[in-house]
């Protein structure tokens, strides 16, 4: 008994000692980036049969790993559902959460998280079976709606129906897999989540063409990578890795030409800075100067990642839309790299 109490007290002191975080050195010492991702949303985070991961969100993990280690493969993936993602991030299970997570005030301020930018501008939509004969969200009065718990979706849903004075019955479930199951089994008439998520999940249905996504977009869902509050250096690394992918698209740097452009003495100054030929931006982050050369040649720029995972040629088939560069009519805009 005495011993036990003593051990407890000693443990308490030890825990208190280890609070200060230096995520970068911890990650380097570990040899892999711990990254929280979606359990499975086609195009955003998906695990192939051989165990490898791919997707727009996964590419952020891979790019950060490449910037740190020079190897995009050094990622340990932690698939999480929506209701446990922040707890596990705060508990230190992983250091980066890249899982179609909406940047909101209360998450940023109240939950103690730091959002490091936006890698997909989205909005909440509704999907119904074509056979329901509904063409607008305004006709959904009385419907039962499947929604996933712990998301902004369930909050928007309540607001949308209350604001429009429409009654509905929510059916709240825990994971996307359960949502799909419930929707397909007819436990609800309507499936709601981020529009990208609707398109992605629809690809997994037995007959995708039997379901329509209604035209209304009822919310803003800027999705982006998240870190714990309190480690600014780590936050900078994630934010600028994402920015570098967008800037690379602006500058025309791709995975194919990155190495050649780095070697090209006549390359534009912006490219030289980005690829670590001029200035030592990598070192300012505590990384090597060729950090972004590595991430860009292994993962590619934003456009490449988009086309590869969710673009029009993939099963998910999303248009760039808002996610086009600001110069192309979208709102994708990264601060200058200098």
């Amino acid at each position, binding site marked *: 008994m005495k011993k036990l109490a003593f051990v407890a007290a000693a443990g308490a002191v030890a825990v208190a000692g280890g609070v200060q975080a230096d995520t970068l050195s911890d990650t380097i010492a570990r040899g892999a980036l711990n990254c929280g991702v979606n359990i499975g949303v086609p195009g955003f985070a998906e695990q192939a049969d051989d165990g490898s991961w791919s997707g727009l969100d996964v590419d952020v993990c891979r790019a950060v790993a490449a910037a740190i280690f020079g190897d995009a493969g050094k990622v340990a993936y932690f698939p999480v559902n929506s*209701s446990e993602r922040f707890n596990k991030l705060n508990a230190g299970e992983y250091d980066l959460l890249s899982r179609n997570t909406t940047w909101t005030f209360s998450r940023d301020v109240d939950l103690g998280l730091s959002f490091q930018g936006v890698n997909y501008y989205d909005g909440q939509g509704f999907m119904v079976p074509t056979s329901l004969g509904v063409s607008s969200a305004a006709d959904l009065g009385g*419907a039962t709606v499947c929604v996933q718990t*712990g998301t902004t979706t369930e909050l928007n849903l309540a607001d949308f129906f209350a604001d429009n004075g429409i009654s509905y019955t929510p059916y709240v479930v*825990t994971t996307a897999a359960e949502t799909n199951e419930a929707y397909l089994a007819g436990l609800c008439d309507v499936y709601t989540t981020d529009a990208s998520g609707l398109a992605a999940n629809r690809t997994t249905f037995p007959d995708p063409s039997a379901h329509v996504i209604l035209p209304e977009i009822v919310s803003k869902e800027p999705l982006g990578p998240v870190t714990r509050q309190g480690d600014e250096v780590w936050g900078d690394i994630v934010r600028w890795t994402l920015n570098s992918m967008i800037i690379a698209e602006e500058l025309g740097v791709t995975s194919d030409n990155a190495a050649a452009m780095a070697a090209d003495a006549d390359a534009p100054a912006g490219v030289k800075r980005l690829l670590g030929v001029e200035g030592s931006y990598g070192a300012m982050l505590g990384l090597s100067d060729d950090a972004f050369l590595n991430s860009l040649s292994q993962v590619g720029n934003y456009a490449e990642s988009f086309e590869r995972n969710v673009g029009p040629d993939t099963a998910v088939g999303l248009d760039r839309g808002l996610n086009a560069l600001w110069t192309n009519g979208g709102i994708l805009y990264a601060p200058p790299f200098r």
Partner: protein
Amino acid sequence: MTTPNLSADGTAATLRSSGPRNIFATRWLRNILVQTFIVGLIVFAVVYFVNNAQVNLLRRSGNFGLGFMATPGSYDPSPFFPIPLKNNDLVFRFVALGYVNTIIVSLIGIFAATIMGFVMGLARLSNNWLIARAATVYVELLRNIPLAVWLLFAFALALTLPNIVASAPISGPLGLSISNEKIILPALKFGDGMGAETWLGFAPFDWQPFKTVSLQSSAMGMPLVGLLGLMLIGGGALLVITRRRDMMRAFNDRELDTLYVWLGLLAVGVVLLLVFGASMVMSVSNSVVFAATAFYLLLWAILFLIIFAISNRIEAQERATDAPGIKSIGIIYRTIAGIVLIVLALMIETSVPPMTSWTMFWVFVAGLMIANCFSTLLDIRAQAIQNRTGDRPHTLLYQLAIFVVVVGAVFVVLGGPIGISVPEPNKFGRYTANSGGLQIVNGFWILVAALAIYTSAFIAETVRAGIQAVDRGQTEAARSVGMRPSQITNLIVIPQALRVIIPPLNSQYMNLMKNSSLAAIISFPEITSIFHGTILNQKGHAIEITAIIMLAYLTNSLLISAVMNTINERVKLVER
């Protein structure tokens, strides 16, 4: 007292030590020192952890405390609650209703598990080979596969039932249907034909404070130390009560069923006071709501104490006399008082405006309980006649008549407020909260059934062990005095077996109650999935939320223990 007493305090040690008095050789002093040291360490560890959590959480998000309990829940949960819950209700209400669901599921589960467990336990001992084997298979199959797997299996199976919209559900008359979503039955409708909003023509309470209020979250928080302290005190008090034999005896002298009422009321009170009390301390800006609530709670507590005191008086009288009159007064008094307190607590808890259909329901329950009082009176009279003449008059018909008359009277007094509500689907072919009828969602009955069936396997084993522990000689002796087999089971074997069965039954009940937290995997909302699954994710406050959930389960466990200990005291050998 010259003989050294080795088993007692310092005397012996002092006698033995020849040198200068070593204070550590004094046992009581040594004990005190050691225990002070240990307690000190524990207190230090607790304070340290709490402080550590507070400091680090503060650094991360700047607010730590129960303030979030008074903010709106912000999402619409699945409508699987006894009363409606909306997104602008306070978090406290979400949690309270989640807790209510936990309790409902646990109580029904315990009831069903006990019956099935006894049946299966007896079946395993049956002389009929087939029945005995079937029971063995039942037990082995159930207890060797985890409950979570059973739940998922049952839910997946239920999903294969016909869908209510797409294909014709299994249906019957009066809107009855079974589908992969829910079971729908016609229901009794209370409150029809009442017209007026309230029964008395005016509202006895102003329920406004309990309606949803959108409050700004106030950042002030009550430190966790207070909560932990309350938890310890509450838990400690209950433990002391369950441990102290003399206290239990005092409880035992009372009617058993009344004891349940008291304990239940006490539990509701303690939980409400704890949570509301904590909320009161924490924020001044919400004081209006909480002051009103606290006021009603205070009223409730005062009423409780008065009733308790009067009840004690009557009981003292009861013990002093054999007059059936006094006994019956006691019974009637306690029953009615219990009902009043329950209804009041429920009104405060759920903020149901008076005289909605729910209140009508309670009035009916009250009617039934009053009828119960009268039939108890009949029993007492029958007993008296039996004592006098040796013949017990038949009471069954009279008792039935009493039930019919009393319930009928309540019915008439309320203006015949009853009808049949036949469920109607809406334009999507679905049944919603407004469709009428009794709708039992699959998640609910699957959860209750899985919990009950699973636990019944363990109870069956306990029952079998208990029965086998009764000496064969008892049965043989009973047979030799000419008892019938049913009499032997009911009068000789079961009463003795209960002594062995009750203690392990306690832990089975607790297991069932705690296992109800698996509801999350089939999307049925109870306290864990609401509070830990959703609210925690939307609002943060992991430590506070987990602590409150722990408190809720702890309270439930202690209550189950208290009730089971009482029953145990009753069935165990009476030592005179």
